């Protein structure tokens, strides 16, 4: 982490379709601190049609609460750093194209998703659909930015030019501002930049060539394409939304998509702690998954999978029976379907008890679907030939995805479904949906200021990560969850815990049990965990693990329900799971 750059307080805004949230961050003797937050409705839609009205109100409200003038007559007060991330207009809509779906198109996809985009389509020459269908699709789905990749440097030429010609034929128009040129980023074979630029002429597209996302089959280079996406987002996309040109003139750093800012702070946090991290952001309309495994960042997005606008799509994609299996009481399919339908069309600000149960059930399936999708993105580079020897057959070195719950040290939930419910409910949601294995820290974002901290990274990398850890993340607990299955009521593992004060406790955990062990929030302890044969806690079948852990709000969480988790058909068992966790005291299932 580099040294901090500046000493001015930072006023940081994140603007989404419904809310404009302001955060004031300043230096104190103890390091950086969040001085206050405020939020107000976003004013990009009628009748206001000016995003700065909401920005000004949020900043003034915040200034009022902290006793400091944060807003002058013509924008943010002097002596402040003013930063902003944005996801209005339903995020950044992108199309990407490449030559092969598993090589260049996949790298282009990773670049776009990593830059915070919502992908509306991926085109490649080997995808089994005819060219005319691609043309029609390009025409009908208007993106904000188009990213074209293809060919390694010095590699394929004609196929890349054919794809460029298809795009030319489609005459792709931007989502907003029919009179504007669509930003077109070319990140393919570096040797044919000029020919591609000529094909995608200046009259139709604002074309910019950057370094290849896949300069060689075995190498991926996403940085330049991502930076170009940020630039185009700032220069061509957001300025078409009402009031943004004024906002752009005020900010001290380029405005970037909210999801990109979240990705940046999560990446910095995982690198700082040297951990593998899996984060799920369950929103109203979309569900994002971020992962950092062995310092490789990936983001995937399930558009139209969310807990208000996107809740019907969860039932459609997962199947209504998959949602219903998580509801811990008897409800008819009609009741559940009507609740889901009404949550989509009405987006109620407060929920009835039945609606909460249905929403939590849907959240589990949203996360499950999103993580399944994420496995496709968080994968080793395809197209690279790998040699396996006999040892590799037993290792996961060549598994298709990086995602491995046994090697995931941190699991993080983000979204109202985690913060509006009790910590025990948030915990069980994450345990059920993501099924962590081995030893995993379970956390949620309690303040919702990750985008703000992502923006702060440029100002103060250390400060941003410290704030994330100290003020933003709520550590629910460290979870012990053996992989494998056993006999219900038979012993699953023996736990010997030695706390920092030297006291030692011993526990026997039965298979099927879910409970907490007392360990103060932030307190450290040494664990010796011995799983029964057939179960693995991280060292292999039946092998003992010694590990240092930290307690959270719930202390130490012991989940011996087995992996993969089997959801019981008996509703009373499901209801019992829901009551098994208690904040920082021992309880029994």
């Amino acid at each position, binding site marked *: 982490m580099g040294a901090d750059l500046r000493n001015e307080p930072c006023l940081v805004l994140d603007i989404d*379709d419904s809310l404009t949230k302001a955060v004031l961050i300043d230096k104190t003797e103890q390091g950086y601190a969040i001085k206050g937050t405020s939020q107000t409705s976003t004013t990009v839609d009628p009748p206001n049609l000016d995003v700065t009205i909401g920005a000004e109100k949020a900043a003034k409200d915040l200034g009022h609460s902290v006793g400091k003038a944060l807003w002058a007559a013509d924008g943010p007060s002097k002596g402040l750093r003013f930063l902003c991330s944005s996801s209005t*207009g*339903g995020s950044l809509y992108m199309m990407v194209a490449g030559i092969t779906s598993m090589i260049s198109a996949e790298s282009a996809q990773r670049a776009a998703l990593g830059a915070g985009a919502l992908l509306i389509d991926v085109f490649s020459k080997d995808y089994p659909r*005819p*060219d*005319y*269908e691609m*043309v*029609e699709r390009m025409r009908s789905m208007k993106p904000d930015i188009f990213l074209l990749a293809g060919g390694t440097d010095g590699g394929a030429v*004609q*196929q890349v*030019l*054919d794809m460029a*010609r*298809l795009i030319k*034929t489609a005459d792709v128009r931007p989502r907003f501002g029919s009179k504007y040129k669509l930003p077109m980023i070319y990140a393919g074979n570096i040797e044919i930049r000029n020919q591609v630029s000529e094909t995608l002429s200046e009259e139709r597209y604002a074309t910019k060539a950057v370094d290849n996302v896949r300069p060689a089959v075995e190498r991926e280079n996403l940085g330049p394409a991502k930076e170009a996406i940020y630039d185009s987002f700032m220069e061509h996309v957001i300025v078409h939304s009402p009031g943004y040109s004024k906002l752009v003139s005020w900010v001290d750093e380029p405005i970037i998509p909210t999801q990109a800012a979240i990705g940046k702070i999560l990446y910095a946090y995982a690198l700082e702690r040297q951990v593998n991290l899996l984060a799920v952001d369950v929103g109203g*309309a979309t569900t994002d998954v971020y992962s950092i495994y062995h310092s490789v960042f990936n983001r995937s997005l399930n558009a*139209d999978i969310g807990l208000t*606008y*996107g809740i*019907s*799509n969860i*039932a*459609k*994609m997962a199947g209504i029976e998959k949602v219903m299996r998580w509801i811990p009481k008897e409800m008819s*399919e*009609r009741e559940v*379907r*009507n609740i*889901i*339908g*009404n949550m*989509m*069309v*009405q987006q*109620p600000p407060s929920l*009835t*008890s*039945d*609606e909460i149960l249905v929403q939590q059930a849907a959240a589990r399936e949203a996360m499950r679907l999103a993580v399944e999708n994420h496995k496709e993105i968080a994968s080793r580079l395809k197209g690279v030939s790998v040699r396996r020897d006999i040892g590799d057959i037993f290792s996961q070195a060549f598994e298709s995805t990086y995602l491995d719950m046994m090697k995931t040290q941190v699991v993080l939930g983000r979204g109202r479904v985690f913060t509006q419910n009790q910590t025990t409910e948030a915990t069980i949601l994450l345990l059920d949906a993501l099924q962590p294995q081995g030893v995993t820290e379970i956390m949620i974002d309690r303040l919702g200021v990750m985008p703000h901290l992502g923006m702060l990274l440029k100002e103060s990398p250390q400060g941003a990560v410290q704030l994330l850890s100290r003020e933003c993340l709520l550590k629910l607990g460290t979870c012990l969850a053996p992989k494998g299955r056993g006999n219900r009521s038979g012993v699953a593992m023996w736990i010997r815990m030695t706390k920092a004060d030297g006291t030692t406790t011993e526990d026997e955990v039965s298979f099927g049990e879910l409970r907490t062990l007392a360990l103060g929030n932030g307190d450290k302890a040494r664990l010796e965990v011995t799983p029964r044969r057939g179960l693995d806690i991280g060292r292999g079948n039946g092998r003992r693990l010694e590990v240092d852990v930290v307690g959270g709000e719930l202390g130490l969480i012991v989940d011996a329900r087995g992996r993969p988790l089997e959801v019981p058909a008996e509703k009373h068992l499901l209801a019992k799971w829901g009551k098994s966790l208690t904040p920082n005291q021992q309880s029994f299932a």
Partner: protein
Amino acid sequence: MQRSCLKMSQLELRFQEDTSVKKVRRIPAQGQVLVKVGDIVSSETIVAKGTVLNPEIHDVKVYAELEVYPEEAEKYMLKDEGDDVKKDEVIAILRSFFGRSTRVCRSPVDGSIETFLRSSGRVLIRGKPIPVEVRAHIPGRVVDVIPNEGAVVECRAALLQGIFGIGGETVGELIVTVDNPDEALATELIKDDHKGKIIVGGSFATVDALRKAATTGVNGIIVGGVDQRDLVDFLGYEIGTGITGKEKTGFTLIVTEGFGVHPMEERIFNFLKSHERKQASIDGSTQIRTRMLRPEIILPS
């Protein structure tokens, strides 16, 4: 547990008893505008007409027809990009000595050459443009013309918004089939003479009622609630995202309150009842997310 109906402030937003309604009517292409500013139009008046690109594109493998390598196909082409072609017209020819094994490639449709893909020796031929037209949808006066695309029609009307709908724009005489907003729209309430009409139910429409409406030829249904399961059964597919308007159900459905049994808001029900037998223009198109487009019922004054 049922969620209560919308709050009064939300109701005010979606129910304006007397307001100016302006409708932008435009074709999705350049064409001919058939009205001028000041014209009085009916809901059926054609405002503009033109043609749109035919989405049908035929992928013709020229190289395969000529039995040559893909990259060689270019030299045998008779047509360029943009050229019009007739069905069965020769677009590429490979002549051999004495014409004994001459091979040709013909267009499968009337249309034009969209693109020639040199490296793969293929031609994309687009079918002939498709005629399109747009009607006024509401009776009123033309207040603006959008050159080559359409016009803006204005009228005084009552404007009501539903919460969810299926099907697009339609017009018809308003018929209230129930006595009070608590009553369900049952099959027996839909009569043969409701063909072409917009019928108003109370709290709920059964799946059988939806099916009967379709077979009767009803133009529209306005009702407080419908079971999501029934709607899925009626449509034949799951409702995923809240984007509707293109369904081919034969009629437009507007749900005013929500999924399940929901008595229609009394004020709305009484208003619709007081406008019985009047002409209504309705649109079930819904976009729940960013644009927040809700289905509309327009009752011109």
